[in-house]
């Protein structure tokens, strides 16, 4: 049997015509969607007391976005950052985040908010379902608490409990070697200060049970005068002092404690010391303060990390901060996930991002991983060392052991009822 073509318009060609018609109508949109730049919204704090949080986050993001765009963009789409100030108010952070998605058409979100602002943006992400990476909130509960868990939100910041485990074990080793039994603490009086100090002492006592806390001071956040705190600590005569003061509070505390020659009389453990924001501002940085690494270009001691720190300094004329590396990592992870998913779609990126390991200058072993089960960053460089008054400020950092961190973190989660 031979097939003959019937004259006129066949069903098939009608369909083809209709399809072509539809295409010609839809093509501009499809083409535009593919060629269109992708907007990433970023609410952060650009004014007020902690404006440095926002500016150093923004700098790092722009540095990385330039690289991604030069390499062809996010799955072929050029990134356009829309960065807006939330003034550090959670209701503004929520408003700005909603505005970025609903009005400005941002398809992805980087949440560079601190503490309460991050939880406010988290609720927006829950409500709107937009892909979101939290880059500055270190509060463990943000990802550890299963009640907070949503499939579209991740975190590329440190986690408080990781810092406490590493700090506690480092301090305990020194306490044992030097026989430091009497300890004092001095931390800012708000949730971060209270929680971090409690977790640090928990792990310190776990590794060195003979340690005793003989004095606790809780100066107010942004306090100007620390005289009473310094004299209280000196009167208690501890052998060691722990503090999680940070930024301007830490630097004014050190400047004022220097007058009393406090740092010669006890070992000092200040977790937030080894960040350029504090190191470069203190007038006379005492030698031998123990500190966790926040961001320092000499740890990890890799050429990639040093090069990244120098590139940042060259571009912005200041050293990066702890927030800088956390935000840069977010863009690196996003770019790699988009490449793997071959799409800039938030849902597809989120799928690939779970458990994704990438090469990264801030990794303990040159890589970092976005842990799949709780959407938080692991494997980043974390360690403690002692200060010297000039560059490189913290010449040797003793790296924390991620195996121990994982074990104790799992235990901690269980004790909190999270698992």
């Amino acid at each position: 049997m031979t097939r003959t073509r019937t004259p006129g318009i066949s069903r098939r060609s009608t369909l083809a015509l209709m399809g072509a018609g539809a295409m010609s109508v839809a093509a501009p949109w499809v083409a535009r969607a593919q060629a269109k730049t992708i907007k990433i919204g970023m609410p952060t704090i650009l004014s007020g007391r902690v404006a440095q949080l926002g500016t150093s986050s923004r700098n790092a993001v722009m540095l990385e976005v330039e690289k991604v765009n030069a390499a062809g963009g996010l799955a072929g789409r050029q990134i356009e950052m829309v960065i807006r100030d939330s003034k550090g108010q959670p209701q503004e952070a929520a408003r700005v985040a909603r505005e970025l998605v609903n009005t400005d058409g941002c398809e992805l979100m980087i949440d560079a908010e601190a503490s309460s602002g991050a939880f406010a943006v988290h609720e927006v992400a829950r409500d709107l379902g937009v892909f979101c990476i939290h880059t500055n909130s270190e509060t463990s509960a943000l990802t550890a608490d299963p009640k907070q868990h949503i499939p579209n939100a991740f975190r590329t910041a440190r986690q408080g409990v990781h810092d406490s485990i590493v700090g506690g074990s480092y301090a305990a080793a020194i306490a044992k070697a030097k026989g430091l039994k009497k300890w004092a603490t001095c931390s800012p009086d708000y949730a971060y200060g209270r929680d971090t100090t409690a977790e640090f002492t928990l792990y310190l006592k776990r590794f060195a049970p003979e340690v005793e806390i003989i004095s606790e001071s809780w100066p107010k956040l942004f306090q100007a005068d620390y005289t009473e705190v310094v004299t209280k600590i000196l009167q208690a005569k501890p052998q060691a002092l722990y503090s999680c003061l940070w930024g301007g509070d830490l630097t004014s505390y050190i400047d004022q404690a220097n007058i009393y020659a406090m740092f010669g009389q006890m070992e000092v453990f200040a977790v937030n010391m080894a960040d350029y924001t504090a190191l470069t501002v203190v007038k006379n940085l005492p030698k031998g303060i123990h500190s966790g690494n926040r961001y320092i270009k000499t740890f990890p001691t890799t050429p990639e990390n040093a090069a990244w720190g120098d590139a940042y300094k060259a571009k912005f004329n200041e050293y990066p901060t702890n927030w800088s590396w956390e935000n840069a990592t977010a863009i690196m992870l996003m770019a790699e996930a988009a490449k793997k998913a071959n799409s800039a779609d938030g849902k597809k990126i989120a799928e690939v991002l779970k458990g994704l390991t990438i090469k990264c200058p801030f990794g303990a072993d040159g890589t970092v991983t976005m842990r799949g089960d709780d959407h938080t960053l692991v494997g980043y460089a974390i360690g403690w060392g002692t200060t010297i008054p000039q560059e490189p400020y913290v010449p040797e950092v003793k790296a924390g052991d991620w195996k121990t961190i994982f074990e104790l973190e799992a235990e901690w989660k269980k004790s909190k009822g999270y698992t």
Partner: protein
Amino acid sequence: MTELEAGRAQTLVPVRSGAVLQRYRDVLIALIAFAVLASLPLFTGSKALLDFVIRCSAYGLFATSLNLLVGYTGLTSFGHGMFFGLGAYSFGLIMQKLGVPIPVAFVATLAITAVFATIIGAICVRLKEIYFAFVTLAFQMLIHSTILSWASFTGGDQGLRGGIPRPVFLGIDLSNHVHLYVTSCALLILGLLAMRQIAQSPFGYTLRMIRDNAARASFLGIDVWRAKLTVFVLAALFASMGGMVMALFVSGAYPEFAYWTISGEGIFINMLGGVSTFLGPMVGTVLLLLLNDTVTRFTEYHGIVLGVVILFFALGLRKGLLDFVAEWFSHRHDAGKGR
């Protein structure tokens, strides 16, 4: 009936019917305003606009309630934000911990606010001017510090986390954006209408007399302390309503809601819009939020812009916008009569 009494009765009747007429007019305006606002989602798909109106509801209720104190009674409270925060936290905590229906939580929050406001007000309203301002500020900081320190209950400086559950009630689902929008509008209009009734009632005129001359009011047999306390509690209730709308909008409550900056914003809104007209604070709210939202889009130096605007209103106009407009109209009116 003596002659005198008869004369009084005659003059009273038209006054009273005038008040009734005005009440009908207010209700009518409120109904029209609600109809316009509620039909907005039919004409526009802009979620940002709906968000804007929801925030206007929260701040508008708060600022107008502050004006009951500042404009009508002459009580300049620097701590009114504590009731905004109290409303947000009470509502959020009740919903999170007890899981009761939303209207129950709403009423319970108002009850809690009333208790707090009665205790705080009983101490504060005895004081005058700057002393009143500072003691209210002190109470606000007390509540703010309590929220920060009582971390196991309030979440401390991280705020109430995990979102506020919104079970459906009477077919209203507040996790639906449009439902939340219409509910906010309804609360705003009801709140404004109630406050308008308070301001126009004999009690409202008593408050004005206390503002202008408390000693005279007292000599006329008015219990000044009780009147001040009553309006303090009423204003707190509406501020608390504003706080609940805000808590629903952000799906949480944060210590910043009870911080002095919120009270400061309330005062600023009143300065912008004007305190001598009832709708002044509402105009101020729209102005401030519009300014805030547009300026923050373009610059992070919004502080300078807002500062210049304050200076313009404080030094240039020397009054709020609606005060200025109202005065201009009455001038024109007078000029027209004189011709």
